[in-house]
């Protein structure tokens, strides 16, 4: 064996050659290991026996050997660790090519299916439209009601102002001035016509 063997590493070869035989011997007849097996293990074995476990020498070795080895399929890892593009995986046993729809039965089933689907869609659209219409109608009515209330209030205030003015004409001059002040304020608030204020200016100039 020795002359035929090719040695790649010159420095490594003599070392291996010189220590090869002795190393093996050492490992087989190692003093340290001997002492462990003979002295150290015996009391440990007795301890385990006390606990009730059957102490077989081969048991520990078996445990080490039975390290679970899972396949990729068991772990659920895909064969290629990447996304499989659509169209690459083809179902087996299926016929290649297009499937045509030409016979009356399949056509009519397809027709019925499509029509039912469309009817449902249209119906739901109509329902939604009706609901929205109802909501709009309710809002419109509410707005109209509010508008009517506002107008009524405005009319009421106008009426109140007119009454006050009439009273003021009958009363004293001071009272009239006070009335004027109030009415001007209210007019400004309600934003009514400017013609009335002009009239008053004229009457004031006359005084």
């Amino acid at each position, binding site marked *: 064996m020795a002359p035929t063997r090719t040695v790649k590493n010159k420095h490594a070869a003599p070392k291996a050659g010189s220590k090869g035989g002795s190393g093996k011997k050492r490992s087989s007849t190692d003093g340290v290991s001997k002492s462990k097996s003979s002295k150290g293990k015996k009391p440990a074995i007795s301890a385990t026996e006390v606990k009730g476990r059957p102490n077989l020498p081969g048991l520990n070795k078996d445990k080490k050997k039975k390290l679970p080895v899972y396949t990729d399929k068991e772990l659920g890892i895909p064969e290629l660790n990447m996304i499989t593009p659509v169209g690459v995986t083809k179902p087996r046993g299926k016929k290649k090519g297009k499937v045509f729809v030409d016979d009356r039965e399949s056509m009519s089933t397809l027709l019925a299916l*499509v029509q039912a689907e469309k009817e449902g869609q249209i119906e739901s659209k109509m329902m939604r439209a009706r609901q929205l219409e109802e909501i709009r109608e309710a809002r419109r009515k509410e707005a109209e009601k509010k508008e009517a209330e506002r107008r009524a209030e405005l009319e009421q205030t106008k009426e109140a102002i007119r009454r006050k003015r009439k009273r003021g004409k009958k009363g004293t001059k001071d009272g009239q001035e006070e009335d004027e002040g109030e009415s001007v304020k209210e007019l400004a608030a309600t934003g009514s016509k400017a013609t009335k204020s002009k009239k008053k200016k004229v009457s004031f100039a006359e005084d």
Partner: protein
Amino acid sequence: MRPLTDQEMKVVLDKLANYMSDLKSLIAPLEDGDRYVFRLNHNRVYYVKLSLANLATCVGRDALLSLGTCLGKMTKSGKFRLHITALPILARGARHKIWVKENGAQPFLYGSNIVKAHVGRWSEDCPEHQGCVVYSMADIPLGFGVTARSTTEARRLDPTGIVCFRQADCGEYLRDEDTLFAG
């Protein structure tokens, strides 16, 4: 020329169902025992009698320009576009209709949408974005479109408001003469 696949047929029927209420009449058997079928040639879908389709099998794909009634064309993205040539079939079983006045017929035939002022009358209970067939007041089908507003909303619309978006009109026979049947 070949029959349509399951998917293609579904797309075509789905589009037709937007405009038609009764689809079953499309494939109803005729008095002479014949029936109508759908055929595809160069992305165009034809509605043709079975006997005629069988006769046409002896004509090569490239040599066959058109047969039966051209319904429309399958786009490259797999959708289906109806052509004006499908109007007689749509008009037969129209779900919703709009009649345009005399003054509105010409603008529609020149390719514009329908405004409220041009509408003579319309079908009741028509929802928004629903296919409808456009007729003249003399009940002549002029084209088809999609409603812009529901009937109730359209009533409140001002006269210049659009009530129907045009999809196809008879003017296309002249305007799209070159590309309507081929290309």
